[in-house]
């Protein structure tokens, strides 16, 4: 997986151009844009990503891009490697062969892709405003979030903190942002560790 912040609205440039500095921070965040290149994540991960609707996505299309060497372009969850990597690899081999056979027999890419697994890698461009990004961090940095999207969110947070440390000082999972866990009985109970992990620079 690779995450790169390609472009963002410099907050100081906007603040300095405003006739007043009295803009509520939460509202101000909504006027800032952040664009990331996200590469080599699974389709399972990108499905979760696009559930964040106040954002824009441009994803590699399986209708237009033929998948080559699927076995080399899958994301294998650590639990699978640990428990039964061979079963997983065998399935990927089978899916790859079926896909190639369908393509060779003249099935269009947009239909042949139906046999591709959620493990298939994808890359995309994603743009979010600062407020939506804080919400994204609140949900996807939580211990309950899926491991892959959490790794991705972690990297995104590092990068936005690199360019806008003050704006994202309070960023982290919702327990860090709110000071209490909103997950109710599903709470991991690790609020102290999370606060330590995500406390600003």
């Amino acid at each position, binding site marked *: 997986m*690779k995450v790169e912040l390609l*472009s963002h609205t410099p907050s100081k440039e*906007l603040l300095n151009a405003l006739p007043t500095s009295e803009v509520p921070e939460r509202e101000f965040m909504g006027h800032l844009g952040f664009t990331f*290149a996200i590469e080599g994540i699974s389709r399972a991960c990108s499905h979760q990503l696009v559930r964040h609707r106040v954002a824009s996505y*441009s994803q590699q299309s399986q209708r*237009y*891009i033929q998948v080559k060497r699927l076995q080399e372009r899958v994301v294998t969850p650590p639990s699978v490697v640990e428990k039964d990597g061979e079963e997983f690899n065998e399935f990927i081999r089978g899916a790859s062969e079926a896909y190639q056979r369908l393509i060779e027999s003249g099935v269009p890419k947009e239909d042949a892709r139906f046999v591709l697994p959620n493990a298939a890698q994808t890359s995309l461009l994603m743009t979010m405003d600062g407020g939506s990004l804080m919400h994204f961090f609140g949900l996807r940095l939580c211990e309950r979030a899926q491991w892959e999207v959490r790794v991705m969110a972690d990297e995104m947070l590092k990068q936005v903190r690199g360019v806008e440390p003050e704006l994202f000082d309070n960023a982290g999972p919702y327990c860090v942002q709110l000071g209490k866990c909103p997950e109710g009985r599903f709470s991991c109970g690790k609020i102290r560790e999370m606060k330590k992990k995500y406390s600003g620079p």
Partner: protein
Amino acid sequence: MNLRLLASTPAVETLIATAMLTTTSGAAPSTLFHRLSGEPAKVVDVVGHLEVQHGSILEHNRLSWLLEAEEGEVLKVLLKNRFFSFTRLGSRSWLLSANLRTVVEYQAEGDEFGRMLLESIREVAPSVNANRRPVA
């Protein structure tokens, strides 16, 4: 009504070209972006083919303006397009932001505000400004 662009995400048109090529080429978006950053003529060429692409590729940016307008004028804008974000700064003063897709879609209204929006992007998105392509 008065409109002034205050800030924008840098490299607006390079990002549009990156988004266009990301969907249809196997290259990684970061590779495309860095390659295109050194090829301004290629960016103009790719963005020139905008009409065959989905409008969402215009969304990878954020533009922020200072707007001087009456409440009624702001309401009119919002009723025509709900994708603008407004923050009130004073009785006739507003911080306004949107992405380029919203700008392009709104300017098709052909009213005074649409003309001001289009004029305001002349420097940050010159090809889009010149082409004013319809959004699919």
